[in-house]
């Protein structure tokens, strides 16, 4: 017990020092942290988030920032692992003194690093964490990435609209990906709810390239619909190999495949794949159309979902900061006070973002109304687009 009370004393000491250290006022430009995977295998997702966030910084500062005070994004690489995410968060919180954090990339990393931010009372917006339980990590944790439960059933309904004769369904998913394993549960439930036969469930890993065995199993069942929950590379390869080996029916790709990164993988075989989207460039709101136009002008292609969600994360922070700034100039706040106020304001506000109108429930779960189902249309081997289905 003596050791425990020593720990306690040290804790109090740490807390006191923290308060003293935090007494400085907020600097201009206002630092906002971005902690996503810029290295490792996960960088495929992270690099889109970097583009989205950088674009947001440029776009928002071009329009006056926080009522005239510019923002400055501070990037810290999380890599693909848990310790990397904690290190990035710690650096942002203590060294870079950011007002809030957009990140990390993976749900598993969020489960590891978010509690750190929560205990330090730093607001976090998850740009791509979709696993169950993320907003419940703590009061300072929210996300702009909607869990997939809403969008998956729509995709199946759209497929049935295109081909009402669908009876037998094969479901495949990446079992080492947190997002895909939760999404496939929703898909499988929907298949049963719609009275379809779930002929086979096949698993793979996101690092797999060769899907010969899975495709053989699917072809052996003579299914009319294949539902894939995976990411760009594996999902794209699976699509390509299904088509090359003669599968003719419809294919639904989960939200992880909502990226043009898939096009170079399955090329012309991507054509016709139905994709469940949490973001669509076709979303008609003014906020999105301005974003899509500016983004496309700069990057020569429409924004991918990961970029749009990262952009939204930054935008929500800035919108909330603007409201706070109107009450009391941002640069007049001390850091700990502002972080707490910012978290409160984020949960209160309503935001017009590229994802459509969003707000948050009391846990920090995003309330997003618009989800989309699109079908891929390939122009040639490399370029294609997501055509919005209604």
């Amino acid at each position, binding site marked *: 017990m003596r050791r425990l009370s020593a720990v306690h004393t040290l804790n109090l000491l740490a807390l006191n020092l*923290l308060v003293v250290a935090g007494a400085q006022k907020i600097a201009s430009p206002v630092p906002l942290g971005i902690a996503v995977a810029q290295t490792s295998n996960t960088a495929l997702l992270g690099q889109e988030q970097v583009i989205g966030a950088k674009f947001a910084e440029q776009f928002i500062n071009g329009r006056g920032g926080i009522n005239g005070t510019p923002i400055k994004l501070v990037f810290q690489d999380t890599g693909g692992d*848990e310790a990397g995410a904690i290190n990035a968060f710690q650096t942002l919180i203590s060294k870079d003194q950011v007002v809030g954090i957009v990140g990390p990339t993976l749900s598993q990393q969020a489960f590891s690093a978010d*509690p750190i931010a929560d205990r330090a009372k730093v607001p976090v917006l998850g740009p791509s964490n979709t696993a169950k339980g993320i907003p419940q990590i703590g009061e300072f944790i929210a996300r702009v990435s909607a869990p997939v439960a809403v969008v998956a059933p729509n995709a199946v309904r759209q497929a049935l609209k295109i081909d009402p004769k669908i009876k037998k369904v094969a479901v495949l998913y990446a079992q080492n990906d947190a997002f895909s394993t939760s999404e496939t549960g929703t898909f499988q439930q929907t298949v049963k709810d719609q009275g379809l036969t779930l002929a086979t469930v096949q698993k793979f890993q996101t690092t797999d390239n060769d899907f010969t065995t899975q495709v053989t199993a699917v072809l052996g069942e003579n299914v009319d619909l294949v539902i894939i929950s995976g990411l760009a590379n594996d999902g794209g390869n699976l699509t390509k190999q299904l088509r090359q080996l003669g599968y003719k029916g419809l294919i639904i790709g989960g939200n992880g495949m909502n990226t043009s990164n898939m096009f170079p993988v399955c090329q012309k075989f991507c054509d016709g794949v139905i994709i469940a989207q949490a973001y669509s460039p076709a979303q008609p709101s003014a906020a999105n159309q301005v974003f899509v136009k500016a983004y496309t002008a700069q990057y020569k292609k429409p924004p991918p979902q990961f970029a749009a969600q990262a952009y939204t994360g930054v935008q929500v922070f800035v919108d909330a900061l603007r409201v706070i700034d109107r009450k009391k100039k941002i640069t007049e706040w001390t850091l700990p006070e502002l972080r707490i106020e910012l978290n409160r304001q984020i949960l209160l506000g309503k935001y017009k973002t590229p994802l459509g109108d969003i707000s948050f429930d009391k846990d920090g779960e995003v309330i997003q109304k618009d989800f989309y189902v699109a079908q891929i249309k390939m122009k040639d081997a490399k370029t294609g687009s997501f055509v919005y289905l209604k």
Partner: protein
Amino acid sequence: MEFLQQYGFLMATMLQQGLLGLSLYAPLMAGQLSLASPGFYALGGYIAAVILTNPAFAGWRDALGYGIYPLTWLLGAVVCGLLGVVVGVPALRLRGIYLALATIAFVEILRVLALNLSITGGAVGLFGIPQAFGFVDRWQYLWQFLPLLILTLLFFHQLSRSRTGRAFRAIREDELAADAMGVPPTRYKVLAFVIGAVLAGIVGSMSAPFLNTWNAKQGTFDASIAYLAFVLIGGSRSMWGPLLGGALLTALPEVLRGLADWRLVINGLVLVVASLYLPQGIVGSLGRKPKPPIRPSAPPRDEGPVGPPYTPETL
């Protein structure tokens, strides 16, 4: 204190990785190159994570209070020790690189199992793990890892002076000769392997609350190779080597954080340069007089018709 806030996690991670380096060092004391540590580390972490989060153990948690944490360490140690015997007895008939590969296979099989079982939470893993002894900040986990490290070092120190330690060394230098002198190699090799397994298991069970979450990514081939690098870069002939190697190589990417995209490139270069210029490891080259290389410096080439054999002497 601000320093602890910022670097506390890194410092605790350095100790944690140093301990894992030591878990590889244990079988190496008896000349056995085992890369099984990530498997036992993952298993220890799962045991702690399950006990600390699964509703089935709610009764235990209520009854024991903070006592539940030492219990998870104990269970991690016991289960990993037992599994160490089960795996070690057949695997330790293998030598050198073959043993290393069999242990890599073991790690990979455990990883796939963890992905597929429901008690381990599949790909998402287990999360919301309660904090050991109500710790709030990461640096407080130094209270866990530092005593463990000191105990481990004391243990290894005593061990190396004991009869068992001498038997380990005898096997490391020449297994056949040791056997001839009445040191039963299999028993001691399994013992050394189990010591490593127990240590990795305890570190794992301490790490689940430390990382807040636990999943199948914790025990991988990449980790096997990383720990091997700790041992080789640190120095494989003294217990200070793996500890130093683990601590330094863990700190390196964080020290290089300012280089942004280039930090892993530099990290890779450091690995190359270190292996070129510190062939005996950091600790090996710190020694005042370079010890005569007890191992042959190049693999003996005259034994097998195809390819040089990896005998225990070369590893």
